């Protein structure tokens, strides 16, 4: 009998305990990401998991002989079930609507297997140690392992390894315990079983390791973990990944993981995007152009006026289709996409503007995602704005969303300067949209103009009034035009994309 195998087995107890708690935390986290409402999810998962562990312990009583072999097999099973739990759950979510049907049984299964581990190990050890010491040590280590797991999980594992890798990593730990056990408990296992167990063990480690290395492709699926609320729709169009979530506060739309609006305060954003343009127009605007804005929310604001026609150009047919047919969006945009005055065109606005033979417009609303790549960056260049200008009547007004002057101050002012150098007269303004922060826009015209003081909306608005209209055009010390030199964004320098990246990088993890 090997003398030193006992302390090592105790080490295994600690590892097993850590792994067990990690799987539980993972399951609770994944489900609260996916299903929302973390309190319910956490308490449900903990409840199911603990009861399943109880079932496992009870089942251990039915195992009679070959305990060492059984223990190792269970380790390998935990390794597979627990190790692949997070990737599996994300996969299931992406492809199935009955997430719950897979989720709770999986949690239960892992719980049962984990519940089997400690009783079996204690029975293996009972011949080597007296019972009092055994119980004391095993339980102590079990709790230590739990502590390690619960500390590591939020501080290190989730932020640095991510859910998928954490899951796979601890799967490997379990498999390692199993594999190691084939040596530590060699004397308790029949030689012919030994080889088979080892082969299985190596295979499991290898599979998990492959998963771990390839986790990058799994994270494409796991991207959903970014969202705090329930995901009620998720689809990749050829252009972007569209996700709609629903939480207590309402609906939110994400494109490529970036928040586009939250229903709880989107009216602030969209009222500011649309109404000042009408306020600054001196005539009777009839022909309206909306670039971007495929969610139909800016359109909703536009249709409050007696306009004749609206052309809405948005790249993504999936997006405009959603805005036209998806109940939650239809409700939010008040069915504006189905208005007979509206014509929807699915094309890159840059290409559309350079080719279109449409007559000039009275008002243009430009609502693109922030310039975080070159394809979007081109929609903020002098070339683009000159094209836009050529499609506007001389007395037309336009509003351009310009990202946050607080978080990306340089980017904001770069857009303003670019507009100026394209021949526009520009009045930048900003409002607070809680889910975005301080947000910036530019009101522009091809001729000099006064900041509007009167709203022309036929009905009262939820956010804008004439007092706010006045103050919007003022910038605080931390959002005003910076001293440093800011270049103009052109197709052949795309400087804005670089400013934007620098500024937002400060807020990114990794």
């Amino acid at each position, binding site marked *: 009998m090997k003398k030193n195998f006992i302390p090592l087995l105790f080490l295994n107890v600690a590892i097993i305990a850590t792994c067990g708690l990690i799987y539980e935390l993972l399951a609770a986290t994944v489900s609260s990401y996916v299903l929302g409402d973390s309190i319910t999810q956490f308490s449900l998962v903990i409840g199911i998991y603990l009861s399943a562990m109880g079932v496992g312990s009870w089942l251990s009583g039915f195992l009679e002989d070959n305990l060492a072999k059984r223990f190792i097999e269970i380790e390998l099973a935990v390794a597979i079930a627990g190790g692949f739990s997070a990737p599996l759950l994300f996969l299931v979510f992406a492809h199935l609507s009955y997430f719950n049907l897979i989720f709770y049984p999986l949690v239960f299964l892992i719980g049962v297997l984990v519940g089997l581990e400690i009783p079996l190990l204690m029975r293996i050890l009972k011949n080597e140690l007296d019972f009092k010491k055994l119980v004391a040590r095993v339980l102590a280590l079990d709790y230590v392992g739990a502590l390690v797991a619960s500390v590591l999980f939020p501080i290190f594992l989730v932020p640095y390894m991510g859910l998928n890798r954490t899951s796979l990593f601890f799967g490997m730990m379990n498999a390692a315990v199993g594999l190691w056990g084939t040596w530590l408990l060699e004397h308790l296992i029949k030689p012919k079983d030994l080889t088979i167990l080892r082969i299985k063990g190596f295979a499991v480690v290898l599979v998990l390791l492959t998963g771990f290395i390839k986790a*990058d492709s799994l994270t494409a699926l796991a991207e959903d973990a970014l969202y705090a609320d329930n995901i009620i729709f998720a689809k990749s169009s*050829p*252009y972007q990944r569209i996700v709609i979530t629903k939480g207590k506060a309402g609906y939110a739309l994400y494109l490529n993981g970036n928040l586009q609006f939250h229903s709880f305060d989107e009216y602030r954003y969209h009222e500011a995007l649309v109404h000042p343009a009408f306020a600054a127009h001196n005539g009777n605007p009839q022909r309206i152009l909306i670039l971007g804005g495929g969610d139909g929310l800016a359109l909703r604001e536009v249709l409050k006026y007696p306009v004749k026609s609206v052309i809405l150009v948005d*790249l993504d047919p999936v997006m405009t289709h959603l805005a036209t047919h998806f109940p939650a969006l239809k409700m939010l945009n008040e069915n504006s996409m189905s208005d007979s005055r509206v014509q929807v065109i699915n094309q*890159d606005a*840059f*290409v559309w503007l*350079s080719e279109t033979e449409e007559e000039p417009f009275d008002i243009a609303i430009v609502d693109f995602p922030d310039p975080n*790549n*070159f*394809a979007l*960056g*081109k929609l903020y*260049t*002098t*070339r683009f704005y000159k094209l836009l200008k050529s499609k506007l009547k001389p007395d037309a007004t336009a509003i351009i969303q310009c990202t946050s002057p607080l978080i990306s101050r340089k980017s904001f002012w770069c857009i303003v300067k670019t507009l100026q150098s394209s021949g526009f007269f520009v009045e930048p303004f900003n409002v607070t949209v809680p889910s975005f922060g301080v947000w910036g826009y530019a009101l522009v015209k091809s001729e000099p103009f006064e900041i509007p003081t009167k709203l022309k909306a036929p009905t009262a608005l939820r956010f804008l009034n004439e007092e706010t209209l006045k103050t919007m055009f003022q910038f605080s010390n931390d959002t005003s035009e910076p001293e440093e030199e800011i270049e103009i964004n*052109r*197709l*052949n*320098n*795309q400087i804005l*994309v670089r400013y934007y990246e620098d500024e937002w990088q400060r807020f990114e993890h990794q």
Partner: protein
Amino acid sequence: MWTRREILKAFLGLPFLMACDNRSKIENIAGEIVGADVLNGHKILSNPLFEVSNNNRERKTVVIVGGGVSGLSAAWKLKRDGFNDFILLELEPKIGGTSQSGENELTGYPWGAHYLPVPFKENSLLITLLDEMNLIEGRTDEGEVIIKEEFLCRQPEERVFYKGRWYEGLYLHVGENDQDKIDLENFQKEIDFWIDWRDSSAKRAFTLPVANCSEDAFVNELDKISFEDWLRQKGFSSERLFWYCDYACRDDYGLKLHETSAWAGLFYFCSRVRKSGEESQPFITFPEGNGRFVKHFYSKVKENVKLKSLVCEIIPKEDSIEVVYLDISDKKYRLVEAQKVIFSAPIFTAKHIIRDFKENMPSYLKEFEHNAWFVANLFLKDRPKPRFNRDFPLSWDNVIYESPSLGYVCATHQSGIDYGATVFTYYYPMCAEKDGRAKLFSLSWKELTDIILTDLWRAHRDIYSLVERIDIMRWGHAMISPRVGFVRSEALKKAKKPYRGIHFANTDLSGVALFEEAFYHGTRAAEEIWSDLRR
């Protein structure tokens, strides 16, 4: 016949085992070998006797032979100066020579030349052309032209694929060591030195056109060694610097580093920078590349152009020059009696065409060597997906570090078409090959397609499922080779001299193949002739 193993080794330097055999996937791809009428071109070689019936004769004051950029520039200049009694004869059914382009529903795409750096203000005639094409937005305080933004190469301009990832720029910075950094810095100093260098009459060492470069012995010395030897003599050793310079030579001249004259190498780096520390002149480009210039010229001189006309013989007489050509449409020989001829076809062909040269070939013509290229246009139904989130995105010019090809240019880039179907123009200079031309012409469409896709597959694993069609143009005589000693050779000087009313005008005469040079020689020849005729 070669085995696939031999072909891939020769063309891609790929260890065979690393190249996946995806030939079965080519079955679904359409395409053909297009263009360059080799058979007709080579007819001149085999058919010494031309019979021209009397009713197939006409008179024109000037005949221009060849409708590439040089011939078109000559025609454009004559027309601009109010002279119309000329005819331009072009062998191909398509105008433009090595600057021609194609077009589908989505976009234009180049078959050869694809960009022109913004000229300095001194190049005033070229600027006149740009002005006429409405490309100019204004001038700086110093009088340099400002080109409209939409015609300047859009960012992102270049990226390079190295060990599985795409990086921004052409020079590979990732993983460089201290020596690399020092070498790059010192290389830049050398370049800066030559940018700012002036001879006793204040001429730049390198500028465009070549005719305006200093002829000082100090500069001309550079033509006596290869660019590679020059780099070594200066003590450089950085592998990536050598790669970068080699790439430049292959890209601009179709030659390897050790074949290229150091003069030509430095010319590439220095001639487009106003003064040290400044950026190189930005590129003017169009979806169809320099095909846009060709179209513009053609719109101005179309009525004087006769396509499908192979000039077979030029016979200088006492008081006229007879130009015999084969009208490929009706297979009849025709003759034009002219006062002057502008010879804009590749210079080496003069020995097969000008009667006196046929009989007694001037020895300097032997020194005009061209290299072979092939250019493929790949029609894709969608863009390759990035393999890594952080990969630098699809750019205008996309280069594969480990490949002897030059990578590809994305034709839809300049139009701002960033999603969906596109056209990639893939460039491959045959410089790595001993007898490149023969090898090129021995390969079938399928074999060339296999080379192209095997090459691109390294960077784009989904390429086979995206490509719907590949058309391939083989340029047997693509570019003049500025080998060591050629640019400053006596041969070049002699070739520039008019011969019995025949004025030569092809980019070959500069020793480097560039739009600016073709334009310079074309307009120069037009001016010479015009002033002779007025006398």
